[in-house]
C-alpha cells in the first residue's frame, strides 16, 4: 500500500474549476516530481492537500487514513510538512526565530535546541547567520531556511513547492543536492518543479499534470522524450487562475 495517495481530487476557485480529477500515489521513501505546464493545477493540489483550499470532491489518504480537512497542526502531527517557496520565510524575524516557528506545534518533550542544532549541522550557513533577519538572505539561502524550517519536526513526508523557482543555475544544483540528501535519510519527497530536466534527473518517478488532470506517470528517466509530455507543454491544454499572474503578483 502506498504511503500517500491522492484520489480523484476536484477543486477550484469560485466557479472556475482548476483540478478536474487528480490521482497521485507515493511510496514511502520515494522522491516524486510533479511537472506540467503553467497553471496545470500543481500548486492548487498542494493547497488542497494542506487544508488551505477545500476540494469539491476526492480523497487524500496518508498511511491508509483520510487526512482531508485536517488542520495544519494535525497534518504536522501526522508527519506531513509543507515547504513553501523561498518568499515564504518570515522576513522580519531572525533565522533562529523562523526555525522556532517551524517547531511551533512541537509535542511535549521535544528538544528544540537539539533540533535547531541538527538543522545547523545540515545547513551550516544558517548557524552563521542565526541572528540575522531572514529578509537579508539571498534567494538560495532563503530556500535552505525553508527546508530547515520544514524539516525541524522530523516529518516523514514533505511537500516541496517549486524549490528552485527563480534561483541561479549554480544554486539549483546545490538545492537538489540537499533534497537528495534529505530523501536519503528516509523522508518521502513529493515536489513540484519548473526546472523539469534537472528535477527529473534527481526524482525516482514523475507525474505530468495538465489541465487539472493527471495525464501521465512513470519513471523519471526519459520522460521528456515521450510525445504526450512535450504536448503537455507545447501542445494543447488550458490554464488556471494561479498561473503566472499569481507568481508575479507576489513579486
Amino acid at each position, binding site marked *: 500500500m502506498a504511503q500517500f495517495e491522492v484520489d480523484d481530487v476536484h477543486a477550484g476557485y469560485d466557479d472556475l474549476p482548476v483540478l478536474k480529477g487528480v490521482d497521485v500515489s507515493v511510496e514511502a521513501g520515494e522522491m516524486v516530481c510533479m511537472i506540467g505546464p503553467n497553471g496545470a493545477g500543481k500548486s492548487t493540489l498542494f493547497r488542497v492537500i494542506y487544508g*488551505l483550499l477545500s476540494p469539491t470532491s476526492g480523497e487524500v489518504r496518508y498511511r491508509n487514513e483520510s487526512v482531508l480537512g485536517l488542520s495544519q497542526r494535525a497534518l504536522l502531527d501526522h508527519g506531513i510538512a509543507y515547504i513553501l517557496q523561498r518568499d515564504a520565510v518570515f522576513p522580519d524575524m531572525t533565522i533562529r526565530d523562523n526555525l522556532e516557528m517551524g517547531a511551533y506545534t512541537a509535542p511535549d518533550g521535544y528538544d528544540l535546541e537539539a533540533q535547531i542544532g541538527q538543522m545547523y549541522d545540515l545547513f551550516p550557513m544558517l548557524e552563521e547567520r542565526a541572528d540575522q533577519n531572514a529578509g537579508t538572505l539571498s534567494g538560495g539561502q532563503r530556500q535552505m531556511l525553508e527546508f530547515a524550517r520544514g524539516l525541524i519536526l522530523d516529518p516523514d513526508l514533505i511537500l516541496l513547492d517549486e524549490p528552485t523557482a527563480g534561483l541561479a543555475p549554480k544554486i539549483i544544483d546545490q538545492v537538489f543536492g540537499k533534497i537528495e540528501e534529505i530523501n536519503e535519510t528516509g523522508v518521502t519527497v513529493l515536489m513540484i518543479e519548473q526546472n523539469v530536466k534537472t528535477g527529473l534527473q534527481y526524482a525516482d518517478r514523475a507525474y505530468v499534470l495538465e489541465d487539472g488532470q493527471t495525464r501521465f506517470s512513470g519513471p523519471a528517466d526519459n520522460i521528456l522524450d515521450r510525445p504526450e509530455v512535450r504536448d503537455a507543454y507545447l501542445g494543447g491544454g488550458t490554464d488556471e487562475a494561479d498561473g503566472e499572474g499569481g507568481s508575479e503578483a507576489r513579486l
Partner: protein
Amino acid sequence: MLELELGLISLGGRLSLVPQATVTAVVFGFVYALVAAGLALIWGVADIVNFAHGEYMLIAMYVTAFVASGFGGGASPVVLVPLNAALLFVLGYATYRLIISKVMDAPMLAQIFATFALVLIIRYSALFVAGPTTVSIDNYVFEGQTQLAGIAVAHPEAITGVVSVAALGLLFAFLRSTRTGKAIRATAQDREVAQVMGIDTDHIFGLTWGLGLAAVGVAGTLVATFSPIHPELTPTSWTLIAFAAVALGGFGSVLGAVAGGILIAFVENLGAVLLNPSYKELYVFVVFIGVLLLKPEGVLNRGDA
C-alpha cells in the same frame, strides 16, 4: 477672519516655557506611545482599524474612577493597573472572537462600521450609566509635584510616564522573546505561512486584540489619575492621537507607533507654548491629516480595489 490670537506673551516669554513643555511632552509621549502601540498591533497583525480604541480606554478610566471613589481611594494603582490590563485583555479577546472574526473577510465597509458600532455602544453605555458630567479623580494616591531645575513635574504624570515605559518594555519583550509573541509577529508577516506552521491564526488574532487593548487598559488607568474623564470628548481625542501616532510611525509598525506617539506629544505641547494653547488638539489633527496625505506607501488608492 480667523485670528490665531498669538497671545500677549512675547516670543521670549514663550521660549522660556519650552523646557517645561518638553518635560510634559516626554511624559505624555510615553503614554501616547503605549496607546498607539496597542492600535498598531491590532492594525498590523489583524489588518483591522479599531475606531473604538479610545472607547476601550474610557472603560479602563471609568473602572479606575469607580474604584477610586467607591473604595475611598484605598485601592492602589499598583493593583488597578494589572487588573485593568487583565480586564481589557479579556474584553479584547472577546471582541475579536464574537465580533471582529465575523467581519475579517467582509467588505471594508462592514469592518469600518463594526468598530464604529462599538464606538456607539461603549460610549453611550458610559453616558447612560455614568451621566454626561465630567468625572475627575482628586488626590488619588499620587499627589504633589517635584521641582527639578525650575521645572515642575507632577507626580501622577511622572509615574504615568514611568509605568508606560515599563508596559511598553514588557510588550516588546513579549513580542520579541516568547513563543506566542513570535507567533503573533509571524502571523502579521504572513498569515497563510503561519497557518502552514500549524499556528492557529484565529487564536492569535484574539490574543492580539487582547494585548492591544491591555496596553490601552494600562494607559487608561494611569491617565485617569490626573485627567478629567468625559464620555464623549475623552475617547475621541485619544483615538485620534493614536491614529496620528500610527500614521506618523508607518501603519501597522508597533515600534513606529511608539516613535509617532512621542513625536505627537512634542507637536502638541511645543505647539501649545510656541503658537496658541487653545489650538493644542488642532496641531495633532493637522499633523495627522498631513501625514495621511503625504505618506506615499500603503495608504494610497492605486485602483486595486
